[in-house]
């Protein structure tokens, strides 16, 4: 059930990402709704399907990019791992964990994308890439982190209701 909802959710998210979000860049950077959702989901209590959602999101995103298949999946898996790690360490302040995870996750996903392009033989200057793509994307992701976290927390509360002791 949770996997099915994840597939439907990421199917919708990747359509929004590729049609709307990608057409609204800040300089050359764009927000990453899929990364935000994956990380927010991984930070929720009682959620056990973080890795499955990470893979679903990664597969959907890979269908909509010309990057080598697996680059985004690898980036999202690392971001999920960091989020799970932060959840254990900073469990009392989930919003702070979200911001930290998104900061690190965005850097990792973009660095992997950059490395993949460099390995493929494309000449990409590092400093303009950092200034015009990575930093604006980071800013947009951090701006969207808290609203997305709140929405995902509501979704998690609906899918994993708190057990009441009688």
């Amino acid at each position, binding site marked *: 059930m949770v996997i099915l909802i994840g597939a439907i959710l990421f199917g919708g998210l*990747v*359509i929004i*990402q*590729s*049609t709307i979000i*990608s*057409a609204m*860049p800040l300089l*050359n*950077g*764009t927000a*990453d709704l*899929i990364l935000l959702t994956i990380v927010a989901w991984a930070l929720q209590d009682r959620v056990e399907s973080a890795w499955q959602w990470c893979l679903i999101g990664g597969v959907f*995103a890979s269908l*909509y*990019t*010309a*990057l080598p298949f697996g680059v*985004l999946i690898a980036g999202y898996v690392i971001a999920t791992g960091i989020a799970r790690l932060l959840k254990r360490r900073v469990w009392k302040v989930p919003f702070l964990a979200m911001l930290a995870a998104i900061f690190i996750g965005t850097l990792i996903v*973009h660095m992997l*994308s*950059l490395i993949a*392009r460099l390995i*493929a*033989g*494309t*000449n*990409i*200057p590092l400093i*303009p*890439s950092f200034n*015009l*793509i990575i930093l604006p*994307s980071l800013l947009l992701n951090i701006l969207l982190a808290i609203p997305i976290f709140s929405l995902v927390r509501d979704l998690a509360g609906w899918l994993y209701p708190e057990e009441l002791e009688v």
Partner: protein
Amino acid sequence: MKSNSPRTLQIIIFLLIALGIIALALGGYLTPLSRIVINPIITAQTWLAKRYQAIQSLITQPADVTSLRQRNTELEAENARMQVQIIELQQQVTEAQVLSTLVDYERRHVENQYIAAAVIARDVSPFMHYVIIDRGSDDGIRRGMPVITQQGLVGQIAAVTAGAARVQLINDPASNINVALQQSGVEAVIIGQVTGEIGLEMIPQNASVQAGDLVVTSGLGGDYPANIVIGQVNTVRSQAYALFQSASVQPSVDFSQLGIVLIITNFQPVDISPLVPAAGTP
């Protein structure tokens, strides 16, 4: 007879007075007097009429408010429908204008065969300048086919599925296109940049390049047909110690506003990679 004469005289006097008053009134001599008399009456009339209307509306209001609200809701719904219709019609007009321009382009370039396609998505990674179109191998689209608009070159089909295809834009950093300057015939290479701009590289040092020169595909390399417009030279950078000059180019296509594109279906790119000597080969 005696008793009638004073009455007749009175009537005549009254008539004369009445006629006199009428004459004075018609002459406008009674206006100040009539104002003094009429103004308080009008004030009283107005006061009474307002109170009456207020009481009348108080009695009849509930029915009116209900019917007005109902009518208002109906009008609001109709207004919303009309707004949606206007937006749809505006979209159709815009689409028709674009298609009309594309048809014009197609008629002017009869040597090529075209398929029109809509841009339905952009690459989710900001490092990649690719778009996805709604035509695929089922429509005869093949990898390597050039993609254009009426303004100029957009890119090349990079990957194809049955119902969609991925187009590598000419501003992608991995895109290299052999071009020529239309005025001087100087040949160079257009290279995409990570910022989404395009740059003209490998211009010979002795070549004369001016801002405003038109850049078109040269057809060399077999990747694109010749003479497709790419853009205009913006600024030229020339350094004495460098082997080549370079220039920034203003693309003729606005890549952020891509809606409908044409794919040239009768052009097959030539694979010249077997002819390129490998590194280290004598």
